[in-house]
């Protein structure tokens, strides 16, 4: 079904010969570190973004040098799982081809930044050696499928986690472009037809995100996804999933027709086959009815609001051939990572250190990168990433625990993690400057110092132990899910942020703007007032977000 005026990206996708475009030629062009505009859109489907160092633009221009272009690559890790060997490989690759910093993202995977054009192919080939790839981690397609991170959360964790892989498989594109361009084709095992009944030649109108949550912890922010699956457990068994559609956490400054939206629960499905079928058809509906002329209105959330929930339900049934059951009761109470040591039902051990904004590197405070490398070398564990940009050292047997603890001690990781304030532990910031082209303001480079200035304000009011979820993004795209934080900072210009209040602990409520475009002094002043009010007037156990709403602050 062709639409009146397709957006330029739509045309590029369709003309791309299954996402090949002229990427190969572009890689051979030695006079620029960039690739063509069209190919920029296409490499996303291969898991990469062409970026440039925004800190260096003016200076390079004066030197008559082009922008300092480099690529960011994002891995596909359903449920955020890596073996120790894969972690070692990743660190080696990062050291050899990128900035060396490993960035754990808010969607449970990792990104490497600063790969120069000539390094992209070697990087992907090295990842391939380690059985890792970046297919469809960006672009108008189903992204990395995220899943409740911590195995201690429930005995059925493994079952849910495995299901994330099945969904992942189901929604991968069929094109072999990735293997041809980056892996020189012969590496390709069996050459099936590229025929793609799901994505056809147009793919989706926009990115598509799926999350699986295990109540009562909503660490994945299931309602921020296009499609959310909430595990329903009855007498210790996973009976199926509640289906929620139309989540999305971004808006565009000055475009009132855009808005963040929490997903709507539309029913319950059980039985693996039926669940997969339902997921599949929800995607096909978005493929067929999503807006392909205006990208700012192309996400599923707008399709849902355009067509209506009821219409959507019937359309699903029409396509699957069976109706959705009525949604089952569930309850989310928290949204957090479990720092420290914990044991799961199979008596395996898990340790979660604090990693500020997911940046794994060695700095004056702590030698995380070196420590994690040494830990991985024991090969007595797996790595699991959380959607709060942390890592869980996972699946450690009783006997192996000591050897790993030794290394943690050696690098004072536990000491460090315990020393972190609860505000910092509950905070996230997106990448923003210097690599993100859409950033209006700083985020991960700035939040740490801002928090250091906020901590004393809490202490002053005896609130230092409070769990207050604070998130900062450098623009309204909300990559660190700042719209569902209790305190949200959303960049409007360099040094200026909207202060958002009113999110809840469980991620069931969006926050609202409290004050616009505040600079640092203004931010600190506002918070000081709010905290002392909160300290004095809160009800027992009342969270800061609930307080803000009860007091009609927003």
């Amino acid at each position, binding site marked *: 079904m062709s639409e009146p005026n397709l957006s330029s990206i739509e045309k590029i996708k369709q003309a791309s010969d299954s996402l090949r475009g002229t990427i190969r030629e572009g890689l051979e062009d*030695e*006079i*620029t*570190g960039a690739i063509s505009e069209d190919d920029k859109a296409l490499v996303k489907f291969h898991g990469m973004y062409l970026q440039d160092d925004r800190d260096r633009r003016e*200076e*390079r*221009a*004066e*030197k*008559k*040098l*082009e922008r*300092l272009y480099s690529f960011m690559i994002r891995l596909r890790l359903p449920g955020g799982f890596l073996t120790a060997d894969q972690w070692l490989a990743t660190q080696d690759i990062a050291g050899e081809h990128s900035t060396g910093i490993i960035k754990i993202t808010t969607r449970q995977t990792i990104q490497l930044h600063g790969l*120069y054009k*000539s390094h992209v192919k070697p990087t992907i080939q090295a990842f391939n050696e380690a059985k890792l790839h970046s297919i469809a981690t960006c672009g108008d397609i189903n992204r990395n499928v995220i899943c409740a991170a911590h195995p201690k959360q429930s005995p059925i964790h493994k079952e849910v986690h495995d299901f994330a892989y099945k969904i992942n498989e189901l929604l991968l594109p069929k094109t072999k472009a990735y293997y041809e361009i980056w892996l020189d084709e012969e590496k390709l095992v069996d050459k099936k037809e590229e025929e793609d009944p799901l994505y056809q030649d147009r793919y989706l109108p926009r990115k598509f995100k799926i999350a699986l949550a295990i109540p009562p912890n909503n660490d994945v922010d299931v309602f921020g996804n296009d499609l959310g699956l909430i595990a329903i457990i009855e007498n210790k068994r996973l009976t199926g999933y509640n289906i929620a559609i139309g989540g999305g956490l971004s808006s565009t400054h000055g475009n009132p027709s855009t808005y963040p939206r929490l997903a709507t629960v539309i029913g319950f499905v059980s039985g693996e086959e039926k669940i997969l079928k339902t997921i599949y058809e929800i995607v096909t509906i978005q493929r067929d009815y999503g807006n392909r002329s205006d990208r700012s209105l192309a996400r599923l959330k707008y399709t849902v609001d355009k067509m209506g929930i009821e219409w959507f339900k019937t359309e699903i049934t029409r396509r699957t051939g069976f109706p959705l059951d009525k949604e089952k009761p569930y309850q989310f109470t928290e949204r957090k990572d479990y720092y420290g040591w914990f044991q799961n039902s199979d008596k395996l051990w898990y340790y979660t250190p604090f990693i500020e904004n997911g940046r794994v590197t060695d700095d004056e405070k702590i030698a995380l990168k070196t420590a994690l490398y040494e830990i991985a070398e024991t090969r007595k564990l797996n790595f699991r990433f959380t959607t709060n940009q942390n890592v869980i050292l996972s699946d450690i047997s009783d006997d192996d625990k000591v050897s790993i603890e030794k290394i943690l001690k050696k690098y004072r990781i536990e000491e460090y993690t315990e020393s972190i304030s609860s505000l910092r532990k509950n905070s996230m910031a997106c990448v923003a400057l210097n690599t993100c082209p859409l950033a209006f303001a700083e985020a991960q480079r700035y939040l740490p110092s801002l928090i250091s200035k906020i901590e004393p304000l809490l202490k002053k009011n005896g609130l230092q132990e409070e769990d207050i979820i604070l998130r900062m993004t450098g623009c309204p795209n909300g990559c660190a899910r700042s719209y569902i934080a209790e305190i949200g900072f959303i960049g409007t210009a360099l040094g200026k942020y909207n202060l958002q209040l009113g999110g809840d602990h469980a991620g069931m409520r969006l926050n609202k703007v409290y004050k616009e475009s505040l600079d640092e002094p203004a931010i600190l002043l506002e918070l000081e007032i709010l905290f002392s009010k909160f300290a004095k007037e809160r009800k027992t156990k009342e969270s800061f977000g609930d307080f803000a709403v009860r007091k009609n602050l927003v």
Partner: protein
Amino acid sequence: MISPDKMKKIKEFIDSLDKEEQTWTNGYLEGIHTGNSSIEISSHKNSTENKKITIAYGTESGNSKKIANLFASRAKQEGIHAKIVSLDQYRLTDLPKEEYFLTVISTQGEGEPPASAKKFYDHIHQNGFNLPKLKYGVLALGDTSYPMFCKAGEDVDHQLGHLGGQRIVDIQRCDVDFETDAHNWMNDVIQKISGTKSSSYSLAKVVKKSSGKKIYRGKILANINLNDRGSAKQTHHIEISCEDVFYKPGDSLGIVPHNPVDVVETIISHTGINAERTFVHRNDTCSVFELLHKKLNIVYLPERVVAKYAVQVKEDIPAMKTGLLDLIRRYPVKDPSHFETFLQQLEPITPRLYSISSSLETVDGEVHLTVARDKFSIDEELKYGLCSDHLCSLKVGSEIDFYIHHNDQFRLPEDNKDVIMIGPGTGIAPFRAFLSERESAGASGRNWLFFGDQHFTTDFLYQTELQQWKEGGVLHSLDVAFSRDQEEKIYVQDKIRQRAAEFFQWIENGATLYVCGAKKMGEDVEKTIIDLIKKSGAADDAESYINGLKTEGRYLKDVY
């Protein structure tokens, strides 16, 4: 006063003359006044009938060639049969058979012959043969601002005599304003050959009007390090504004750098010489301080000068090159008077040349340079080259004196001809000028550039400009080699090899080949090109194919 119609005639007449003819006429009129010119306008050519002469020239930037051509046409006017040849094309085996052999040769480097005269120069310096029949004369082009003034010409003059040749006229040494001296030398030669005192008017003696170099004063408009952070290099793009400056793409800018004041002062204090005391240097008198600061080379003395110093201070100093200050520190002068005498033996500061990287067609009243800050180390201590360091540190708004060194041997062909430019590092400079010129002229000929340096991200000089020329179609092909971005080193010659077939095609289609940059690179590139001509199979003898290109002026080098 002169009547309008007379004036008109004079103007018409003057316009009809070329530069040399004007110079001559100018001096000729002077001569009439000062009465020292003979105006017997009679011509009896019979004496010069069937005389054969060979005029051989060795040139780097075209001056000697220009003079040689002028000489040939004058000789022909006199009925002399003149054969003209560039020394690199000259068959050395012909030398013994020559009757009259006139050499016009410039001096390059540090008193060396031009590259094109090297073969000839070396040949006559290996004895073991003699030239009893040879009647010869040498016209030496040079520049008094270089220590070894006209050295190459002198060597040739001396050697030909040494080999038994008979000198028919004394060697004439010419400074940069060589027109009149050259003219008079020609006259002498022609008179010697024709045996008459003087014949046609064109042979009358011309009084020299000394002009010398035109020195410009420019203002720095911009001074930017083109290399990005983390680069091992420092290459500055320098823009100089200068109202009346004139140059052509291919020319260079010449500068006589000044010595650092602190070094000069330390030398003065160490030697106890009186800084105010005045000296006569060349035609101007100046203080010891000015002498050491602006005129004499003290930063890096050649062995011959160090030897002279040794004599002065009565020490035996091993043969070496070194800075004057180090010398004075190691071997102090016992008495200021010794140093005064030694001052006379110091040599002038040699001018430094920088290829001009702009075209007046696009930036009127401006000269652009591309200067690499020269780095070297003496026992672990990092030092910088005198002139390049000074240039790179010039602040915007500061002033600088320079002259233009014209190079008629490095010019663009007609607009419809293709050009291939090979210029890694600062070798890019003249080609930036070429491309600007070709762009503004809307030249239909195609342009192919080979550039190279160490790293793509930090050392891609003029990257954005080159990209625009590529997009705009001014550059039809742009190949880059970044030596240190991968395991194995990759250089421009490797890129040429990769595109050998096309490269050869362009040459076959009449493209002109330009090479600029480091000497060593020039040699490697030449090897590669000879090699690919061989492989192409199209030419049975690659050497002579290259020589063919040289004679056609389709293979031009400006290496340093």
